[in-house]
């Protein structure tokens, strides 16, 4: 059943989901969970919060499946739900205080790993440190700039698609990206590759 579902476009899977087809919903979640999770993770910088919010996105997809209009691409639609959750409703979740990268527990794990002298572990730590620096820089960007930049850099969406997702004009997206890139250059000025 799931193998058959694998070749069905997401829009059709959503239509089946609206009829209560749980297999279709499961396929839809499996297909889009990584992209939704990572969009949120890059935006909020916290794994646990990203997981909770990604699940919230899919709960909304399940509930809103009947209201979906086939005019919009499914990916645009689900990204709009995600962006809306991140940009407009995150504050009302009362979790804004969690908007920093890495919980104390994650930092603790890093220190434990650091005491391990294996060279590969050291490489991993360096990569993780680099990732953390980038995350910090992203978290320092204003919310709209951060969202536009993530959608462009990691999801490789066009300005037109980003504009639809963020419900603004294409020129506004361009302006957001110009400012985001300028800000990032300042923040990552000491970043040596």
């Amino acid at each position: 059943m799931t193998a058959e579902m694998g070749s069905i476009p997401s829009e059709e899977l959503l239509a089946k989901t609206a009829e209560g087809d749980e297999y279709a919903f499961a396929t839809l979640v499996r297909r889009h969970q990584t992209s939704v999770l990572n969009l949120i993770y890059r935006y909020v910088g916290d794994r646990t919060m990203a997981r909770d919010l990604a699940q919230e996105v899919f709960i909304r997809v399940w509930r809103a499946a009947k209201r979906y209009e086939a005019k919009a691409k499914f990916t645009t639609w689900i990204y709009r739900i995600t962006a809306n959750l991140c940009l407009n409703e995150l504050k009302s979740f009362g979790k804004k205080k969690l908007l920093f990268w890495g919980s104390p527990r994650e930092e603790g794990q890093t220190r434990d790993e650091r005491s391990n002298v294996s060279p590969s572990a050291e490489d991993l730590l360096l990569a993780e440190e680099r990732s953390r620096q980038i995350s910090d820089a992203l978290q320092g960007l204003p919310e709209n700039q951060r969202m536009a930049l993530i959608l462009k850099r990691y999801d490789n969406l066009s300005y037109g698609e980003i504009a639809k997702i963020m419900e603004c004009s294409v020129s506004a997206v361009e302006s957001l990206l110009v400012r985001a890139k300028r800000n990032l250059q300042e923040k990552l000025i000491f970043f040596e590759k």
Partner: protein
Amino acid sequence: MKCSQVQKRLSAFQDGELNPQEQERVSDHLESCSACRERYAEMEKVWQALGDFKEILPERGFYGQLVKKINESNETRFPAGFQWLFQFFSSPWATSTLLIVGILIGTFLGNILAKSDLFPFQQNQAAYSGAAIEVFSLKVFDPIPPGTLADKYMRMASY
């Protein structure tokens, strides 16, 4: 193209969002201008560095937890045994139909309940003198004149 014009469009150039003519003009400028080329190189360096932000994978129980949350939220939103009722009311057609039925019932009840003692002189004008009819007519200047929607509402509310 001037450096200031090029630098304004560098971001869109990097993202491949310019039209072919503009893309070519910026590209030509970059070949001949070391300052803009340097600026673009810095932009590219940051763009590449962003690639080091690694992707994470969903945890194994992601879908299971999701289904659990959906079931929990359904139980909270719709008490057991009444889910069909909430699903029925969530349909726009059902809501519109109920609204129309509500208006019709309200109008019908309004007419029935407010009719009994409304304008008694109109129902039996012969029994009233001309003066009495004039007095009734002056009621049109009342804050809530008889026979108006507000009057019907007040009458219904007083039942």
